[in-house]
């Protein structure tokens, strides 16, 4: 039926020929043109100590890159993180004369959350833009597709902007990758500890987004809960695209939950809180740290949010009395593309840590030195924008930067919503 015609044969043989041809050409250029063609070449290149200067570093510039979802369907929600980092680098360039006498050039490429696009743009950053390091790459699936590559090629992969548990789980296998967001697992575990300590005997119902964000949270919760004190009576999931999650909330209620643990993002969390309030169900809500934002009181009526508990590791953007937060507001308004918010604080933080690490290695601007610096200077480091007492802690064997968080509860003050501290800082306990 499908006999190969004459042309098809020509086709195939030409394809083979092309293969050979290409390989032959490869031979010629290997030595002369591209330094970054293969991982081996890159590594040797970085190892050659040309006065301690590496790819991505010139006399006047330090080139950093990032992959990010800028446009596209789900893209825009996290744009403020990038805006925060960009604003901070601009501020350093303008007001502090850059780093090590060089200006920071920050190239963020749009990957649309698509793993394949992420590979593409990261390759572009590495090979065409020749960046020194990748900073604040965003998206679990997208970053999963590139982090092995970054580790193979020995390119610092700093402050990954997702809280998936795997980034920090195995520092030996991925020595070049360091996350920055509070790990979802850690956040879940800390919440679990808080529940078992303060509300023993109560039934817990779990509602989570059906992806790594939700599942890591739930795994963390189970890690932190003391099974003798609290029982999980129901687990309900929903898709990220779900329009309505009230059915699941109803199921938790019917299962007899006294406490609801919500691994949800603001839209869904607000819906759940509102529905519970309307149904006169006075369960204690614990919601994921991505909801610790005053905007929450605009998404759901403050009376509905009141009493809900969340947690945070960073200072919140509306605490403008704090000098570091005030400074952040100034930077965002002068150098930023977007107004200040909790996400811009995260971005700012990533920029600040990057600059600190770079300043520590001015005399030896290599990728290895950068990683050494990251591993040494952020031992029990109190960040400007971290909550007082929440210490960033990174070492060669521990890539989990944030292991402490503090609970916040929604309070009603003059009819307006406000997040207030409750309890002390809680530390994540690695092994129980």
């Amino acid at each position, binding site marked *: 039926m499908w006999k190969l015609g004459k042309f098809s044969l020509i086709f195939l043989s030409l394809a083979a020929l092309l293969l050979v041809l290409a390989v032959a050409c490869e031979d010629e250029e290997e030595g002369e043109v591209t330094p970054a063609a293969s991982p081996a070449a890159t590594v040797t290149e970085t190892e050659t100590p040309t006065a301690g200067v590496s790819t991505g570093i010139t006399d006047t510039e330090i080139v950093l890159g990032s992959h990010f979802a800028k446009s596209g369907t789900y893209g825009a929600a996290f744009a403020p993180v990038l805006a925060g980092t960009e604003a901070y680098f601009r501020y350093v360039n303008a007001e502090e004369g850059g780093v090590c006498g060089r200006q920071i050039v920050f190239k963020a490429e749009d990957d649309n959350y698509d793993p394949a696009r992420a590979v593409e743009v990261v390759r572009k950053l590495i090979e065409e833009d020749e960046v020194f390091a990748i900073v604040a790459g965003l998206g679990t699936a997208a970053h999963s597709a590139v982090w092995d590559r970054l580790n193979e090629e020995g390119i610092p992969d700093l402050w990954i902007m997702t809280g998936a548990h795997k980034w920090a789980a195995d520092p030996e296998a991925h020595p070049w990758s360091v996350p920055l967001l509070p790990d979802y697992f850690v956040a879940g575990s800390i919440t679990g500890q808080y529940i078992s300590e303060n509300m023993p005997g109560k039934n817990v119902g779990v509602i989570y987004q059906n992806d790594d964000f939700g599942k890591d949270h739930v795994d963390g919760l189970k890690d932190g809960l003391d099974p003798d004190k609290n029982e999980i009576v129901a687990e309900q*999931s929903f898709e990220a695209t779900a329009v309505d999650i009230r059915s699941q909330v*109803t199921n938790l209620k*019917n299962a007899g939950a006294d406490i609801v643990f919500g691994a949800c993002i*603001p839209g869904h969390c607000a819906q759940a809180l509102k*529905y519970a309030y309307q*149904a006169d169900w006075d369960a204690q809500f614990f919601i994921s740290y991505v909801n610790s934002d005053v905007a929450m009181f605009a998404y759901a009526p403050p009376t509905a949010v009141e009493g809900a508990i969340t947690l945070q590791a960073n200072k919140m953007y509306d605490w403008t009395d704090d000098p570091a937060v005030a400074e952040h507001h100034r930077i965002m308004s002068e150098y930023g593309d977007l107004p200040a918010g909790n996400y811009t604080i995260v971005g700012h933080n990533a920029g600040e840590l990057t600059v600190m690490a770079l300043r520590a290695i001015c005399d030896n601007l290599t990728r290895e030195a950068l990683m050494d610096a990251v591993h040494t200077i952020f031992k029990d480091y109190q960040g400007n924008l971290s909550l007082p007492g929440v210490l960033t802690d990174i070492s060669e064997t521990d890539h989990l930067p944030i292991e402490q968080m503090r609970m916040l509860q929604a309070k009603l003050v003059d009819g307006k919503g406000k997040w207030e501290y409750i309890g002390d800082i809680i530390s994540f306990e690695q092994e129980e």
Partner: protein
Amino acid sequence: MEEFWQQVVTGIATGSVYGLLALAIVLIYRSTSVLNFAQGEMAMLTTFVAWSILQWGEYWVMFPLVLVIAAGMGAFIERVIIRPVEGAPVLNIIIVTLGMFAILNNVATWRWGGIPKGFPAPPEIEVTGIRFMGEGALDIGPTVVSYHDLTILVFAVAIMVALYVFFQYTPLGLAMRATAQNPVASRLMGIRVGRMLTVGWALSATVGAVAGLLIAPLILLQPPMMMGVLLFAFAAAVLGGLDSPVGAVVGGLIIGVSENLVGTYTPKEWLGPDMKLTVTLLIIVVVLLIRPTGIFGRRAMRRV
């Protein structure tokens, strides 16, 4: 039993959301035989416009204003973007609507940013002691229904009835049905075919705008807000029959309810809420296998 009714009632609330946007989809399908993938984004954009108007205006001033703007936008899109591909194969027009999807979504992100915004529900109205709309909820035996859910359901049913009457009994509605069926003969009747298409898009955008205004309070106003709704609305429209306004709403309700029942009553180990979307879609496909043009859809005439 109580649990069952709770799930049914919540399902109806969700289903009327799907039905509302499905009505808009049906409107365009009837006049141009095209699945409009940009339907959700058109609604999203008009809701953002509404949000901007609300910064200085009252809700009930904004409401009619936004409907007019939406109608204008629909007519504009038909005239400028759809008209040049009129008569092209259906797939081409679908690709054009996908292009519009990208543009509208991106423009909204660029203009209003990606951070979600709260959007108010229609404020309370009291007519002869009976309360409509507004915040809060109503106790009905086993469960509660928020006034906003009722508003959505009432709007969906009202628009459905209005469209039914419009298509069935008014000359313009009849002319639109005729145009969709046989444009050449319609021209011979003195019907301005182009104008009918414009009216179809304008109407659809208006219904979509209502959908956007009523859905936003439920899921927050943000550029990707209509993605999930659109997919379910497509499913609802197809389930009910793509050319039937009644089918759109009924399809939406069936999907809303069956989703909840599947999530609640299937074994959690291997189905449960994790798989409720999958099972619901499977149900839709089974229904389609029995009735290939949906529950209320006219049997397609086979073209030879």
